[in-house]
């Protein structure tokens, strides 16, 4: 067989590099450039955009490139048009010019600073729960007999139709007893759904009936603890109903020609729509019971807009008065809350009726202590201190509506009125939770005084202090009062016997303490919390609150050396004894640390504490831990490891890494990070020594390399191992640990046959070949600069690697093997050059040795991969044991290819 003699092309890297570089062309601002972003011209007038569209051919060079999309539109860009119309409205609202304008833009009146009902909703549902059995009483059909006289007036046809409906209902909707809370919620949700269904199938009467029956449930105060939640659930249905009616009537106004604008006036509404709307109101006005009549009418309050301009402003006061007829104070206060809510949504400018609601409420306030209510409480076995807080959600809401953008004088007046009433803790609480925090904060001493005066038997005091604390967390009290406030408040808080009450209060006040005081006070507070929560392991029931205390503390103490010097912080952490909670807390701490720690640290206090924290997190990992969780933990621990630096004390640093390895052995990403860190440490050392290791540093660097060498096998991921072997080998090479580098590369080579066909990436099985290809390209690039071992013959590593590649079973139809062989060709060709393009630099003192030893040029396929793997190699390398390379002559065996490469490339200079 004839052998074709192969020659490698001679290359002049310098010349090639110079010729390949792109010429830089200066670009004038405003020049045409294909990648320049298209700017949509906000066309103020039609003229401009028309011009743009006709002259589109020339537009490419002009600075305002006409967007083809906008040129299609005849006129202005719809988005900019929108912005243009929105602007005057916004300014109008800002200047508060006239009420009429505000009416039109009522959305802009309720700003984002108004806490919407939706956010209260969930809170109420979560807070007011019951374990008692509930009942739903839906008399869909049973009123037939009772209302006989009333219906007799109806025409026969209507009556039979209604009866049919009743019959239809009677099977499914009856009195439901013994429901658990969840059942109850589900039933209500079903009703909500059947309301929608009935509406969709055009059974308006049935829909109205459902709504009436639902709102009737609100007059039932049995299982009173659940009432606030019931209110929330049922008002959801009412909201749905209100929306359906409004949309229906709105859709009737839309005829073929025009769509009603959002802010229409009643003149634009056609007769049919008006008639339908009136019909609804008449129908509702004839509902017999007060409470359903009130709620249903309130729910469609918005529809008044169709009838007259003043409709809503006439309706609101009337409905407000109507509530006076509701005897039960709890029911009536919630009715008021609903009216305020609807009123705020529909006509936020009508403040008067809000105020009227409030004053009416004050008038009926004494009822709470009346006989009727007291008897009811006795029957239900509810104590006053747990009854009064039931009012809070409704009152908070009413107060919030009133105080929203209210003048200071009104607030003062309201407060005065509240003060006058006896046993006003309930009112006080709502004032504190609804009014502006600044308002409260400036008067905090007054409030503390008032709270102290409150009757002990009524509203629980800890709730009052909690509300006050919430305000103080938001707004700052006057400087001079601060300490006194804390003292006064804490005096009361610390006396609370029930650990639950105590911790709820303390949780809030911790924030205030952290905000305004030093670590001494915080430590005292934490000590107090520990003292209260430790007996009987009370902390076990209060993990959420304790967690939030920790969060507040770490949010205010960004300096961790200060944080850990807070005496009681670590003992506080010890209270988290349930593992899952402890890990949660640790995570929080680490997150804050990573976020706020700017400088690397070697503070032993921080290190000790955080190592402990990280260890806790790490130890929580077990076989059942989810991948995501592990990743998260590893991320946090890595963040910590990266932040640890002992400066020039490299040995200390290494011993830290050794310790960390023993601590975090279960988290692979942490081990990988440690290996990288140690590699970095080695390179750092090299940099400090400017490439010339002393005896001592050489030993240290070898210790680093050894660290990596024994850590890598403990990893599971095969490519992690391969890449780290390569990487560490490069580092070893750069640090003149040639035999170690050799060992790394050999280990990598021996690992290649173990690479499986498929590997698991993010839970999916993927073929591994592309990764292997990438790695091998990288590897070959490195091999260019690896000196041969004196005893193993020329290119022993390359040969070994080729052998492995040959034995590896490649995918049948892939070209990967061929690609690899091309890489090998590239390598050999590169080796055959006079000078290598890249190399491990010797130190600056011995530049003349650089020439023959290492080089670079990098042809195609392995270029990018190689770049990222090689940062270590840019540093100069001290001259050293490479002397052994010289005099190593070895021609002969193997294929012709090798011979040539070897002769020319490697040993040219040594001859």
């Amino acid at each position, binding site marked *: 067989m004839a052998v074709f003699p192969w020659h490698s092309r001679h290359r002049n890297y310098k010349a090639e590099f110079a010729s390949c570089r792109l010429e830089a062309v200066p670009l004038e601002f405003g020049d045409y450039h294909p990648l320049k972003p298209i700017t949509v011209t906000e066309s103020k007038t039609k003229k401009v955009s028309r011009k743009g569209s006709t002259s589109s051919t020339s537009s490419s060079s002009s600075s305002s490139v006409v967007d083809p999309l906008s040129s299609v539109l005849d006129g202005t860009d719809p988005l900019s048009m929108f912005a243009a119309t929105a602007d005057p409205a916004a300014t109008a609202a800002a200047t508060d010019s006239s009420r009429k304008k505000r009416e039109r833009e009522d959305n802009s009146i309720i700003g984002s600073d108004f806490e919407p009902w939706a956010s209260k909703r969930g809170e109420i549902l979560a807070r007011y729960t019951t374990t008692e059995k509930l009942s739903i009483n839906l008399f869909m059909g049973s009123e037939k007999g009772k209302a006989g006289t009333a219906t007799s*007036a109806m025409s026969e046809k209507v009556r039979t139709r209604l009866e049919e409906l009743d019959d239809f209902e009677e099977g499914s909707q009856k009195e439901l007893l013994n429901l658990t809370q969840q059942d109850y919620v589900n039933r209500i949700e079903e009703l909500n759904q059947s309301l929608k269904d009935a509406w969709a199938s055009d059974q308006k009467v049935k829909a109205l009936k459902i709504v009436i029956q639902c709102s009737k449930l609100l007059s039932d105060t049995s299982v009173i603890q659940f009432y606030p939640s019931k209110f929330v659930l049922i008002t959801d249905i009412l909201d749905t109903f209100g929306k359906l009616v409004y949309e229906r009537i709105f859709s009737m106004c839309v005829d073929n020609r025009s769509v009603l604008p959002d802010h229409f006036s009643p003149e634009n509404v056609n007769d049919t729509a008006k008639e339908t709307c009136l019909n609804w109101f008449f129908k509702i006005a004839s509902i017999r019971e*007060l409470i359903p*009549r009130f709620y249903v009418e309130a729910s469609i309050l918005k529809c008044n807009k169709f009838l007259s301009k003043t409709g809503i402003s006439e309706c609101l006061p009337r409905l407000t008065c109507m509530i*006076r007829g509701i*005897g039960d104070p709890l029911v009536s206060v919630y009715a008021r809350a609903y009216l305020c809510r609807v009123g705020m949504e529909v006509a936020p400018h009508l403040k008067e009726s809000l105020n009227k609601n409030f004053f009416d409420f004050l008038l009926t306030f004494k009822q709470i202590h009346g006989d*009727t209510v007291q008897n009811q409480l006795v029957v239900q076995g509810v104590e006053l201190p747990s009854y009064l807080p039931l009012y809070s959600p409704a009152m908070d809401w009413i107060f919030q509506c009133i105080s929203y953008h209210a003048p200071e004088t009104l607030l003062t007046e309201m407060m005065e009125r509240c003060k006058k009433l006896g046993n006003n803790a309930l009112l006080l609480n709502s004032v504190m939770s609804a009014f502006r925090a600044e308002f409260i904060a400036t008067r905090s001493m007054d409030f503390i005084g008032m709270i102290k005066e409150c009757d002990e038997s009524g509203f629980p005091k800890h709730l009052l202090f909690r509300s006050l604390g919430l305000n103080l967390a938001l707004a700052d009290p006057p400087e001079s009062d601060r300490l006194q406030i804390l003292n006064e408040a804490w005096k009361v808080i610390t006396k609370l016997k029930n650990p639950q009450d105590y911790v709820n209060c303390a949780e809030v006040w911790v924030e205030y303490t952290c905000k305004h005081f030093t670590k001494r006070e915080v430590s005292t507070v934490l000590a107090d919390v520990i003292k209260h929560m430790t007996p009987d392991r009370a902390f076990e029931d209060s993990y959420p609150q304790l967690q939030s205390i920790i969060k507040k503390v770490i949010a205010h103490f960004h300096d961790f050396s200060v944080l850990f010097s807070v005496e009681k912080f670590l003992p506080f952490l010890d209270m988290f004894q349930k593992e899952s909670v402890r890990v949660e807390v640790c995570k929080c701490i680490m997150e804050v640390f990573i976020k706020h720690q700017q400088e690397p640290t070697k503070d032993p206090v921080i290190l000790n504490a955080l190592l402990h924290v990280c260890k806790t997190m790490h130890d929580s990992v077990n076989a059942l831990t989810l991948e995501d969780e592990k990743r998260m933990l590893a991320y946090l621990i890595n963040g910590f490891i990266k932040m640890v630096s002992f400066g020039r004390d490299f040995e200390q640093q290494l011993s830290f890494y050794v310790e960390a390895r023993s601590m975090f052995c279960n988290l692979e990403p942490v081990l990988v990070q440690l290996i990288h860190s140690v590699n970095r440490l080695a390179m750092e050392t090299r940099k400090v020594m400017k490439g010339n290791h002393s005896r001592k540093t050489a030993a240290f660097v070898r210790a680093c390399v050894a660290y990596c060498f024994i850590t890598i096998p403990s990893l599971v991921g095969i490519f992690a191992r391969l890449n780290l072997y390569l990487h560490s080998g490069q580092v070893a090479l750069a640090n003149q640990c040639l035999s170690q580098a050799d060992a790394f590369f050999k280990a990598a080579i021996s690992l290649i046959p173990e690479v499986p066909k498929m590997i698991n990436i993010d839970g999916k099985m993927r073929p591994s070949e592309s990764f292997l290809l990438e790695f091998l390209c990288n590897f070959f690039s490195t091999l260019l600069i690896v000196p041969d071992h004196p005893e193993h013959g020329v290119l022993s590593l390359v040969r070994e690697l080729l052998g492995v590649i040959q034995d590896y079973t490649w995918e049948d139809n892939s070209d990967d093997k061929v690609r690899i062989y091309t890489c090998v060709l590239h390598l050999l060709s590169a080796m055959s050059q006079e000078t290598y393009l890249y190399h491990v630099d010797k130190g600056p003192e011995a530049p003349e040795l650089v020439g023959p030893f290492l080089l670079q040029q990098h042809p195609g396929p392995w270029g990018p991969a190689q770049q990222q793997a090689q940062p270590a190699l840019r540093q100069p390398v001290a001259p050293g044991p490479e002397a052994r390379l010289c005099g190593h002559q070895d021609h002969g065996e193997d294929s012709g290819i090798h011979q040539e490469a070897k002769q020319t490339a490697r040993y040219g200079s040594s001859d």
Partner: protein
Amino acid sequence: MGTSLDIKIKRANKVYHAGEMLSGVVVVSGKDPVQHQGLFLTVEGTVNLQLSAKSVGVFEAFYNSVKPIQIINSTIEMVKPGKFPPGKTEIPFEFPLHVKGNKVLYETYHGVFVNIQYTLRCDMKRSLLAKDLTKTCEFIVHSAPQKGKLTPSPVDFTITPETLQNVKERALLPKFLIRGHLNSTNCVITQPLTGELVVESSEAAIRSIELQLVRVETCGCAEGYARDATEIQNIQIADGDVCRSLSVPIYMVFPRLFTCPTLETTNFKVGKARPQEDTEAALHGGPEARN
């Protein structure tokens, strides 16, 4: 579906006053051409009287049913016999609401013993083979709003156990005092009835306060006349033990159709009695305090 006939009145609420022009269209629609013998439109207004069995006895009520009184009745031929093309044909009509002679257009009213109703009827005469088509449609007549301002006639009232009528054992009643006022005893039918009510004191806990609207209908016949009071609607104005000495609003919208302005004619009368407030005491089965 074959041919269908429909009447559409122009006003959505179908409310007209005497002397106004009633207009609308008759819609004939069908896939095929419709052969007919003429299309007629009839306006009819009647007062139906019925005697209640309670006041005159069952037999009398049955036999002596009073003849309906006709207020208006006229027919016109809208379309001469011929053929409607396939598809939809709209035939507009228009006529003034006038009555002949000294008759009056009473307001539409659906009561128990008195019924005043106005209908439009459209008849399509057809050949022997096909049935005649008929469609009726009610329209509503309201009397013209009163001229001149109504002078309100407010009335104050006080309810105590002593003021109650038809109580058997006055001693069993719990003590209470309710004051209040109605803004006017003469009401405009389109305006709600308004007033206020204050519970000054009540021994027993109040369960509910209700407002009852009652109509009084009187029918005259050969034997004299029958007078009946029936409930129109009942509205709760207070639920539960209301706060003492706090005024609770009285507010009732008069239901259309089922109420009408007080009316007196030779043959029948419709009037509204003063609404009544019911206070129900909390005791179960407790006595009803009634005004």
